[in-house]
């Protein structure tokens, strides 16, 4: 995951908060070690090394995560896909994984400086039964033996697009198990989990920044539309300043293509790949999703960016935010306007706030991602 995790916990007993926070950080570190695409001793490396040859038995939690990844792949119409690491490398967005089984990387020219002209070049390389040399279709999960195998040589899974959210979910579960009722956790400022709400407030206020690459500016009360109309999309936002979202027992994730780019034929291409075509996604400048779980929110924020639209069949319970210069903000889902609030957190004097931080191994650091900000 190679990023910084931070959490703020509120409660009466600082010792208890710290102990619970340390367990949560240990949990995040555990999943970082297990799901790290780059580390030689990670479970993902083990799977990538062996699963093309034979089934690899894995623990129930990782199996559940991979099962969810497959479900999300189907739910997003293939816009979220955990097998695109070879594409990422081919486009030059990812360094070669040390000890990688090779896959496309060894068969396609090292294209860091020379991205392929089109996806056709990739698809001609030893395609599988589906005509593609990558794809979640090549990942098989056997629930009875709790094992994973790949049906095509060179397939790799890279959970970089979802591991952070999953680790945050696991950490949040531990915090709740330990009696924490008020906390905010984030990973790399692009995924956030809210537990409860700050005392005196209806939710944790998080700002999705405005125009691409610009930090969010403080929202003035005069910017806020009248929420009494119940009109969809009526939440505090400003084209330049961003959207403030109030989260309570929910998660928000944000994706944008501009964190890492390559120059190709005089054009700047962002690092979000459309797994359906193999090309870089073009359209929205930013996408965010609010879901019950950070795992789902991470997958959906990426998928929304790829799709550049809210799918018609997407549950209303999943809130979506899309922004691009030509269409401005597009907000969907019935929940978001209810979440938007002007309430500002206030802390009673007898409450303790504790901040904890951890930085996972920066090796293989993922692309810088857009940041959310805690609202003033």
């Amino acid at each position, binding site marked *: 995951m190679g990023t910084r995790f931070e959490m703020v916990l509120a409660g009466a007993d600082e010792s208890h908060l710290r102990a619970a926070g340390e367990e949560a950080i240990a949990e995040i570190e555990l999943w970082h070690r297990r799901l790290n695409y780059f580390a030689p001793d990670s479970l993902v*490396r083990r799977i990538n090394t062996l699963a093309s040859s034979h*089934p690899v038995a894995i*623990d129930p939690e990782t199996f559940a995560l991979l099962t969810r990844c497959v479900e999300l792949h189907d739910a997003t119409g*293939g816009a979220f896909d955990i097998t695109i690491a070879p594409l990422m490398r081919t486009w030059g967005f990812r360094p070669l994984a040390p000890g990688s089984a090779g896959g496309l990387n060894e068969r396609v020219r090292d294209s860091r400086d020379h991205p392929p002209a089109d996806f056709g070049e990739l698809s001609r390389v030893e395609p599988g039964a589906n005509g593609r040399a990558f794809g979640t279709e090549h990942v098989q999960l056997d629930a009875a*033996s709790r094992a994973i*195998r790949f049906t095509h040589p060179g397939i790799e899974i890279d959970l970089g697009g979802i591991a952070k959210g999953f680790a945050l979910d696991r950490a949040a579960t531990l915090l709740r198990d330990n009696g924490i009722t008020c906390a905010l956790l984030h990973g790399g400022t692009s995924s956030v989990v809210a537990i409860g709400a700050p005392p005196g407030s209806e939710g944790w206020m998080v700002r999705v920044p405005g125009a691409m690459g610009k930090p969010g500016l403080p929202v003035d009360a005069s910017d806020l539309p009248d929420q009494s109309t119940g009109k969809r999309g009526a939440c505090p936002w400003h084209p330049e300043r961003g959207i403030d979202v109030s989260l309570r027992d929910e998660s928000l994730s944000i994706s944008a293509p501009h964190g890492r780019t390559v120059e190709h034929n005089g054009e700047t291409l962002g690092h979000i790949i459309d797994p359906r075509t193999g090309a870089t996604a073009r359209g929205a400048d930013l996408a965010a999703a609010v879901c019950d779980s950070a795992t789902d929110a991470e997958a959906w924020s990426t998928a929304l960016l790829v799709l550049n639209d809210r799918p018609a069949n997407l549950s209303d319970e999943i809130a979506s935010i899309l922004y691009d210069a030509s269409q401005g903000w597009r907000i969907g889902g019935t929940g978001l306007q209810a979440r938007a609030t002007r309430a500002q957190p206030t802390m009673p004097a007898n409450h303790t706030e504790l901040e904890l931080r951890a930085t996972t191994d920066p090796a293989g650091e993922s692309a810088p991602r857009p940041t959310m900000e805690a609202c003033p």
Partner: protein
Amino acid sequence: MNKPDRSLDRRTFLQTATGGLAAFAISPLIDPLAAAPLSRAMNVAVIGIGRQGRAIMSELQKIGSDVTIAAICDTDDSRLQAGLRRAPGAEGFADHRALLDAKKEVSAVFISTPTHLHKQIALDALSAGRHVYCECPLAHTIEDCAEIVRAARSAGGAIFQTGAQGRANPVYRLAWSFARSRSIGDSYVMVRAQNFQKNSWRTPANDPAREKALNWRLDPEVSIGLLGENGAQQFDVVHYYVDKYPVKVRGGGSIKLWDDGRETYDTAWCDLVFDDGLIFQYQTSLANSYEDVFEQFHGSLGTIKLTWSHGWLFKEADAPTQGWEVYANRQQFHNEEGITLIADATKLAAQGKLKEGVGLPNDPLYYALESFLRSVDEGSPPVCSADEGMRATVVGILAHQAAVKSEEIAIDPAILNV
């Protein structure tokens, strides 16, 4: 978009898998440290579902379908429920005796409770005919250690393994062979080790009534402090390498960061002295995490540094060169160049994958658990016996006492032999 057929039936899955295994046999791949399957399926139980218990469960689940976690036990219900979420199908118990009575199919138990509770659980499990893997340190008193050793010796065919992981670690075993072949000299010049981890050492307790029980490591009545809890694991590594035990210990400590009312040190040190004058210096702290955990064995011809997942050999300028070094993988550390110690390097080199073998592919705990299960399966001696676990633990207890009293304590060899 066509929906992929990901719902292959189990038969097809296994048929394809068999093809994969055949390919594996033809092309000796990639994973020389992978465990061979056990000869029989085994039901096991984990007693104590704190952080270490959860780690044990996680590693057991990686070992494969031969091993089923059939039961787990914890007196704390929230921990028990969290454990059950991680082990679908396991039965939960609040009392270890009830587990031993009810789950006759459980042949082996893993004890990861607070240290001072190990003894009774180990004795009950051994008397119930179960194989026992008990976390290190074995106990919080010398007397309890001795009782465990006696019980393990009289347990008939039951295997007892102390959870000191160094002796099962492939990198440590490889480095040990280098040390034994005098690669760093005829004898050790100095041994140094540390365990630095920045955390409060506290466990969250939802129920204030459980605070004392859950934070037993901070309770001077039962805690053997950092030197006992962290040290014992590493003291066993030193015993393994040096092949002898210290004859005296001096130590000290203080509270440098976590001044939250605790009485146990958050930073401590000890010097263990051997009969030939060899000094083993050990430091441990909760106030700083620089360089984490390591052991260093210094000889006149070189130094071996071990960090649980990695190992290196640093040669002195006047050390003789051996032929294999030409092909060795190396890493630079400021002004020093270390030869990476890679487990099963010959196999990996034959596959042209030597660099990929740097670092263990699994957590060190995995190898300790796997070696225990193999001992149970084959009836072979455990890599770390109750006797060796007792010696590491007793040295840890005495180091803790020396630090608390700020004095030197002589270690009577008789105390290390039950």
